[in-house]
């Protein structure tokens, strides 16, 4: 029963906090660029405003176009629902492991790319093509990270990996460091952040994600934006849960433990958001065909993480 309750709280928590995190990233970047920047609450207002506007749908669009935003948002939300944030004790924790997480996000991407192709414009196709290109290398990298973690922890479930890390079996392991590096690179690519993609631009030939959703407006765009924000928070939560799970509450934790878990998660995620803003301000965007090297690097990093386990005889 408690597991169900925690599950429901968690479900709303990830959606509720996602715009805030995006707001923090944007504010950080604005401050670093010497602007005052909008408040951290601005993303909430943006979503609300979009929700209230009418939606303009292209003449050539099929039902796929109108259905896709719901599918995308639900797939991302569902993925976020199954990944632990403040406690591992949730009803849906065993419903999906890291492989399923990759696949759920792939579902969202499948819909996004199809929606990009649906209207039949050059920009939509360009975005869809590039998004699938990025994903074709990012997804295997993420699965390889899962592989190396599962070799150490003997599980693919993020909650169980978190417990393993909390149990102090890991120490200063190189493999974990490499896997973390690979996962961060994947997260940057999958969320369309600099240096892979620029979330702030609409009118640039290097854009990827924004090109696909170019035709969207109104409530459909609101859903897509919300999905993007939730995905960012989701990746941060996964990184926190797998590599820095300290404070994470378990089935036996009392109310105090839960509060600690909640604030620990929030604190870690906020630090990551500021870090992301800092990183994006420091680095320049990459050429599209450099992305293959970048993500190929992530893939090989994850593979090295696996190989290093044999050196350390951790398996």
């Amino acid at each position, binding site marked *: 029963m408690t597991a169900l309750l925690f599950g429901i709280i968690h479900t709303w928590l990830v959606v509720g906090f996602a715009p805030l995190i995006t707001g923090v990233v944007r504010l950080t970047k604005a401050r670093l660029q010497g602007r005052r920047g909008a408040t951290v609450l601005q993303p909430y207002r943006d979503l609300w405003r979009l929700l209230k506007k009418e939606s303009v749908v292209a003449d050539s669009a*099929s*039902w796929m176009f109108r259905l896709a935003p719901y599918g995308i948002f639900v797939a991302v939300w569902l993925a976020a629902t199954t990944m632990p944030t403040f406690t591992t004790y949730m009803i849906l924790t065993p419903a999906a492991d890291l492989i399923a997480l990759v696949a759920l996000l792939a579902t969202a991407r499948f819909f996004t790319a199809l929606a990009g192709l649906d209207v039949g414009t*050059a920009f939509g*196709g360009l975005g869809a093509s590039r998004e699938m*290109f990025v994903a074709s290398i990012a997804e295997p990298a993420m*699965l390889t990270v899962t592989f190396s973690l599962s070799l150490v922890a003997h599980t693919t479930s993020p909650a169980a990996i978190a417990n393993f890390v909390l149990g102090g079996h890991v120490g200063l392991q190189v493999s974990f460091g490499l896997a973390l590096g690979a996962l961060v690179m994947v997260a940057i690519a999958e969320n369309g952040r600099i240096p892979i993609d620029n979330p702030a631009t609409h009118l640039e030939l290097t854009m990827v994600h924004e090109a696909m959703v170019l035709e969207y407006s109104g409530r459909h765009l609101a859903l897509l934006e919300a999905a993007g924000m939730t995905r960012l928070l989701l990746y941060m939560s996964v990184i926190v849960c797998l590599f820095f799970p300290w404070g994470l509450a378990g089935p036996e934790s009392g109310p105090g433990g839960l509060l600690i878990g909640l604030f620990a998660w929030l604190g870690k995620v906020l630090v990551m958001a500021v870090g992301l803003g800092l990183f994006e301000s420091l680095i320049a965007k990459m050429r599209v065909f450099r992305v293959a090297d970048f993500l190929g690097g992530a893939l090989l990093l994850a593979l090295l993480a696996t190989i290093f386990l044999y050196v350390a005889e951790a398996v």
Partner: protein
Amino acid sequence: MIIGSVLGAFLLLGLLGIIFNRLPQLHALVYAGCMVLCAILVGDGVYHVLHAGREEIPAVVLPFGLPWLKAHFRLDNLSAFFLVVINFPGALTSLFGIGYGAHVPGARRVTPLYPLFLFGMNGVLIADDAFVFLVSWEFMSLSSWLLVLADHTNAEARKAAMVYLVMAAFGTFCLLPAFGLMAGHDGAYGFAQMRLAHLTPLAGGLVVLLALIGAGSKAGLVPLHVWLPLAHPAAPSHVSALMSGVMTKVAVYGLIRILFDLRGDISWKWGFVIMVVGALTAVMGVLYAMFQRDLKTLLAYSTVENVGIIFIALGLAAAFRDHGAMTLSALALVAALYHVVNHALFKTLLFLGSGAVLASTGERRLDRLGGLLNRMPVTGLTFLIGAAAISALPPLNGFVSEWLIFQSLFQGPTVAHWAMRFGVPVVGVAMALAAAFAGTCFVRAAGIVFLGRPRSPEATAAVEVPLSMQLAMAIPAVLCLGLGVFPVMVTAGIATVIEPLVGVQMPAALLGWPWLSPVSPTAGSYSATMVLLTAIGLTLTTVLVVHHWGSRRVRRAPAWDCGHPEQIVNAQYSADSFAQPLRRVFGSVAFGAEETVEMPSPGDLAPARFTLRMIDPVWDGLYAALLWLVNAIADRVNRLQFLTIRRYLLLMFATLIVLLLVVAVRQQ
């Protein structure tokens, strides 16, 4: 008994088809008959799978075949399982054929051969001696060869049939000595005697190698795959569905029968080899598929990929079994068979979809299609479901089998040898790449064909196909969802089927019913049922929230396209441009892809041209070289035709003396 009469009925249908060749209603009648017969076989197979272990395994000996052997038939769990896997898609393609079969090129040649093809495939499954197995195998090969050749006015189809015939003959040529080695000196060709035979390690290894080549060439294993993307698309679409979705499964059946039933002691090294070849096949197959411009060729290459994935799991199962990890072996084998079922379903669905598109537009080229979702809603929706399933997206069935294969791969380093320890992660990467590429490949296929604006007048004029064809696509689409949402029931069923082969029953759900957790309670779990229920809940919530607080107004307007919309339909992304980034990264190395752009000089009104050239490295590197070698040898041997009679006599005499010498030496 039932099976015997059904098989007889298949032959009869074929015969009727030949006799009443001119009858216009013939096509519908033959296909309807095939559908009923397949349905009966499915029912029989399901009955035997459900009653596995509780009854005698039915075995029959019939008084024909080799004089000292007679013909043995037997229906054990594995055969019954494959009976379902093969005849269910068979029934669907027959249903599709009722509306479709009369309109294919060379329909009068296709219809009588179709039941014979089904006969051959079913014969392989119930064979219990090498003779019946090989004869049925050849029956299957030859009837499908004739089906490929049905449109014999087409030069490409003739080339495809030629290559197919050579490869099929080569495959059988390898299987023959494999069975011969297992039968030993006494010529014990019954499977029952083969199970008891003891082979030297060398002979055992040779059997595995020959079986791998023989079955692999039929399944489309790289580098034996060259015939498959030529032959499968050349046949009429419902036959392509059978060849791709079903005949490759007969090959998988043959390999499982030899590796896991007839031979019990395969070294893990062979498992490793099979796994690595499977990984290579998966990656190469999907890379090829991604760059195809023809919808049916794309699907055929995707079959190569899925066969590779199945072989990865089979190799793992063999390696685990040799290592004594029986539960893991069972897990890998269950994963392989799950994928066999899934691929049979969605590949049939996708090929039928391509058949519907072909029937409606007459086009297979991706760049001549587009916007069909509005014009063919049922075909479009079912094709999208098939594409999502083959891309391994939850909650559909493709994801479950790939999840299981990943779970068993992650246990691979249990076999503590450095080749496995380093090989398994690399195979894991290959498998992950294949899965991700498959997603891209099918976004491209579905997106270019069904979404966007129509790229040709034929696509603009497309209409939906008849109801029977729609039904044939809707049933597998629903099953793709069903098999994805209730995976525990499927794995439990398959686990029973393979129990005699591995000796243990794989625990399907260690955490209780809806959670699929095969390895251990903590080692990761997946519950499609919960995922689907939650997804429904979240969708309802989202829709309620958006429609309660948001605006519900929709306005139709011309596409914005960043302010400069193009009216020309060719301004859309095409199939080639969609694949361009990946082609640039992988194509230049793997396929020698060369892009040339001819730009007219300023002021010149000639159109700019873009040409793309790609080669199949396996074809150019291996087969062309082989062909050259054969030609060179033939040239040398050719001289033998122009000798004098005295020299011919000399050759004969020399041969005779050499043979006599051999006999003399052997007798010493």
